[in-house]
């Protein structure tokens, strides 16, 4: 492999990883923006989304891939709403640590529930492995093209929903100030519900794409979640474009980084970049203040 396509292929790998992080980060940042807490159980929505697809593709349903995707997404959406109703709604005014621990508990519960039903072993949808098609010296497979296209589509759809619809407007108002939004007559319940559904569906899409590209395992969500956190924070809380850019940045940085540093440190790159970027951005910094 010659040198230019070597680096280009690495960049492509970075973009693929980045798209997955971005899909996870978008769902996280949405809930973070609207309800102001880190949903530690988001990784489990990712994993359950992928397992729901596995469920509908296997016995007794036996649906083909394209037919199994809608019910899987719908079911994950329901799971997101159920999470909110059972745990987060009673805690709407609780402090952050309480919310975080509750989300962690939920994460442990859901992850082990998946292991309870499907076992700890890694599974696959059983699709045929195929060599990538060659474009200008780069290899790209169908699931990978799907990852990039679907990520773009999701960003577009969420953008439209957020900035071009009434529902989106109320969600943004909530994101700015929950109390104020409530007072000004916005249907906060509906907006929060919508945020959960969108967040969960985004998680499921990300999970399914990840599982199509690799495999399913009960830990598939949680192991990528920390990177998604970092992407969320790089992009700025509640900022959809930021989540996309943050995800891509982390994906590119860690893949290009592997070429130059000891690959054992690959997972550290995301954090170093995040801290550098955060420190360089004045508005999240406290300490000496001019006012």
């Amino acid at each position, binding site marked *: 492999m010659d040198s230019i396509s070597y680096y280009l292929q690495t960049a492509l790998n970075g973009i693929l990883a980045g798209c997955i992080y971005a899909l996870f980060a978008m769902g996280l940042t949405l809930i973070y923006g609207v309800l102001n807490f880190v949903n530690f159980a988001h990784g489990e929505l990712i994993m359950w989304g992928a397992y729901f697809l596995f469920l509908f593709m296997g016995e007794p349903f036996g649906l083909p891939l394209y037919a199994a995707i809608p019910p899987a997404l719908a079911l994950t959406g329901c799971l997101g709403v159920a999470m909110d109703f059972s*745990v987060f709604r009673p*805690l709407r005014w609780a402090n952050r640590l309480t919310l975080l621990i509750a989300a962690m508990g939920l994460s442990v519960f859901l992850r082990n529930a998946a292991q309870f039903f499907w076992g700890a072993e890694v599974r696959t949808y059983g699709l045929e492995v195929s060599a990538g098609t060659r474009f200008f010296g780069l290899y790209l497979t169908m699931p990978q093209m799907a990852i990039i296209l679907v990520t773009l589509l999701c960003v577009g759809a969420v953008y439209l929903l957020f900035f071009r619809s009434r529902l989106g407007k109320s969600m943004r108002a909530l994101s700015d100030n929950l109390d104020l939004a409530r007072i000004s007559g916005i249907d906060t319940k509906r907006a929060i519900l919508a945020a959960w559904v969108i967040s969960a569906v985004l998680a499921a899409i990300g999970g399914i794409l990840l599982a199509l590209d690799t495999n399913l395992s009960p830990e598939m969500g949680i192991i990528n979640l*920390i990177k998604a956190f970092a992407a969320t924070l790089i992009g700025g809380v509640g900022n959809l474009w930021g989540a996309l850019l943050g995800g891509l940045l982390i994906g590119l940085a860690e893949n290009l980084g592997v070429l130059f540093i000891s690959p054992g*440190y690959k997972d*550290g790159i995301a954090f170093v970049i995040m801290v550098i970027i955060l420190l360089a951005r004045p508005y999240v910094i406290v300490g000496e203040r001019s006012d």
Partner: protein
Amino acid sequence: MDLLLHLAVVVAIYSIFALSLNVEIGYTGLFNFGHVAFFAIGAYTSALLTLSGAPFAVGLLAGLAAAGVCGYLLSIPALKLQGDYFGIATLGFGEILRMVVSNEVWLTKGPMGLPGIPRPEILGFIFDTLPAYLALSACMALTTFAILAFVVLSPFGRALKAVRDDETAAEILGKNALRFKIKSFVIGSTFAGLAGVLWAHYTTFISPGDFTLTETILVLLIVVMGGKGTLPGPVLGAVALIFFQESVRFLRLPPEWTRLLGPLQQMVFGLLLVVLMVFRPEGIIRERGGRHGD
């Protein structure tokens, strides 16, 4: 019974670990999600020194010092970040430290771990039996408790709470919030190092597997379950959580259930956490005069 003694040692060590986190998270409001890093620094420093022939006292002091110094060095950039940002930066530090331990094989032997760490020897007495080690770690836990009680009940401790509850007000009162936070973080890190030293000399074998994010989460749960911002909270939390987790071993279940038992136990654990947070978020012991639901 030896198992109880063993669990008591674990409880003592984790009490120290939890008490140290409580200074940061409970009293100062610092969300440290990389606390296990300082546990690891203490453990590895002391293990490496004693394995190369240094006496236990040297390993102990060096372990404390190394954890404290690393805490100080981390706190300077990290404390410029607030809330969740600080949390994820410390989480990143914890992960990077684990990577250093796994990759710098020349120093730490990497994933192979360090076997044969000597038992502590103080003035010719070797703490090589369970009761002796329990006595040692209980002593250390009591000392930690006493020192931290002194710290948090002093004006310094009240200043920490002031910083936690209302930073702007604390600043106006002339207290430099950042300096208090750094001090709190260094104290927490140092005592986490102590827990790490005790752990290393107790198991006599350490490897990167001992220092994962799971341990940070466990100790975080201990603090929150027990009652953050209270003195006895972390100790009670350690007792309750460790005994709860172990008690499941004694339920007599049919052998064909064992495959399902592991996940089921974890499911119950997760559910309990959720229920606890919904119905009693302040933990077993409630902080007096503390603010909740902000």
